[in-house]
């Protein structure tokens, strides 16, 4: 143990990169990344529920615009969407003088908008798929009870669809965390931004990026753990009996 301790002290004594200063950068980046991803996921999910229901509507004027939206946002890279929202908006004449400028002046809100629209598009498709795949028997049973379409949606289809969508949604959350690494191109000091900074400052790509990779790994592990627990609870009825 003492040997290990000595080895560790030696290792850190030569270290000029991971000082309190750079660790502060990483911590700031960690907070920004978590905020950005969490907020965009929450808002994205709130948007996605009505969109997913509308996506399965029989009325074309509801169905088609939503389909076009998800098609565009799933069909283009997040980086391009971010660039368009951040650098694109300034080409609207007079935006600097409008009330919107308060939002678009900082980098955080354009990034939040791009991320939210992106994750909402994916989540809409995930929920839509789950709603569509609701077992016929459940719907027939609901009808037999005389439930209206609204009530059936609220009591039967949505709760069941959300449970079945959980594993796919868990993946989307992890993808979103990883995709958020592009935020640093619009000057946001997220985890990747902090790593870029340390890399550029000390010309140490391996140290800077391996450290940040480990942080992402821990975050991903945490998300996986939470979803594993949730799935175990909420999908208990789908597990084979006795398993």
């Amino acid at each position: 143990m003492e040997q290990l301790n000595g080895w560790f002290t030696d290792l850190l004594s030569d270290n000029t990169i991971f000082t309190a200063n750079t660790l502060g950068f990483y911590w700031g980046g960690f907070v920004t990344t978590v905020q950005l991803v969490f907020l965009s996921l929450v808002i994205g999910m709130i948007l996605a529920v009505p969109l997913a229901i509308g996506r399965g509507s029989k009325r074309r004027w509801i169905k088609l615009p939503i389909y076009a939206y998800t098609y565009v946002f799933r069909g283009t890279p997040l980086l391009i969407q971010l660039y368009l929202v951040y650098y694109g908006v300034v080409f609207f004449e007079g935006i600097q003088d409008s009330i919107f400028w308060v939002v678009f002046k900082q980098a955080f809100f354009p990034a939040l908008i791009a991320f939210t629209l992106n994750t909402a598009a994916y989540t809409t498709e995930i929920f839509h798929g789950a709603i569509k795949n609701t077992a016929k028997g459940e719907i027939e049973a609901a009808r037999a009870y005389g439930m209206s379409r609204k009530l059936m949606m609220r009591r039967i289809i949505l709760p069941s669809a959300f449970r079945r969508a959980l594993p796919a949604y868990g993946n989307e959350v992890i993808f979103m965390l990883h995709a958020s690494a592009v935020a640093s191109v619009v000057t946001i000091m997220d985890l990747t931004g902090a790593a870029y900074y340390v890399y550029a400052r000390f010309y140490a790509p391996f140290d800077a990026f391996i450290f940040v990779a480990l942080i992402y790994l821990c975050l991903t592990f945490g998300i996986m753990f939470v979803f594993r627990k949730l799935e175990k609870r909420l999908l208990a009825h789908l597990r084979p009996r006795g398993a």
Partner: protein
Amino acid sequence: MNKWITGALIAGALVSGQAFSQAMAQESQDAIRLGIDVPYEPFVVRNAEGDLEGFEIDLGNELCTRANLECSWVEQGWDGIIPGLLARKYDAILSSMAITPERERQVLFSLPYYNTPSVWITARDRDIDIDDKASLEGLSVGVQRGTIRDVYVTQEYGDVLDIHRYGSSQDVVNDLKSGRLDLTFEDFPIANDAIDFRQDDSPYKQLGDSIKTPTSIFGEGAAMAFRQRDKALAAKFDKAICEVYADGTFDELMEKYFDYDLSVRPSEQDCAE
């Protein structure tokens, strides 16, 4: 017996080798070859007739005349420019090479002969005093990430300015123009090309003086590079650089190619015999 012969042979080879290299050195100091990476406008370009021309060609020829040397130019791509020097493809590099500690381990540098400055730029209607640090609180500045400008701003203004770091200087300029940034701190030649800030009626303006110091951040500038052992040759060029600065020839050449100041006047101490 055998040992004696071998010893004598080695000694002989050493002596003659030394004499030979001395003779070579003698000869090559009258006629030397300068390595340069072409093109790098306006420092060096090949004109329509196929001849090299530009600031560094004029400067190099002037330095050679003063050092009493017959100079010729050798073209060499940047990647191989130090290996080419060490392999004796040419005797010196005169190709906008900035002095860095890494390069100093391999080559011997002359005095620096130029360094491009950096400038603070803001919108013309803004009233900002860059020297009054307290008044800068909360203003945003854009820099290209990892550049010497980033280091300078972080070190000198990190506690007051809100520093935005971009991947390219193009993005910095975009956000200065969009109004997201109050300030930018940019390399003068880049700013000169990308931002209209030098006329009285242009939308942007320069704040304060152009900045080239401290040299611990901005570097000492671009210098000629020699093989480590060619100290006498380097000294000749140091003297020539001092001369062109002292009698105004450097300024004439600079005004011919540039409309801003990139001189790094050598100190009297450096020029003392």
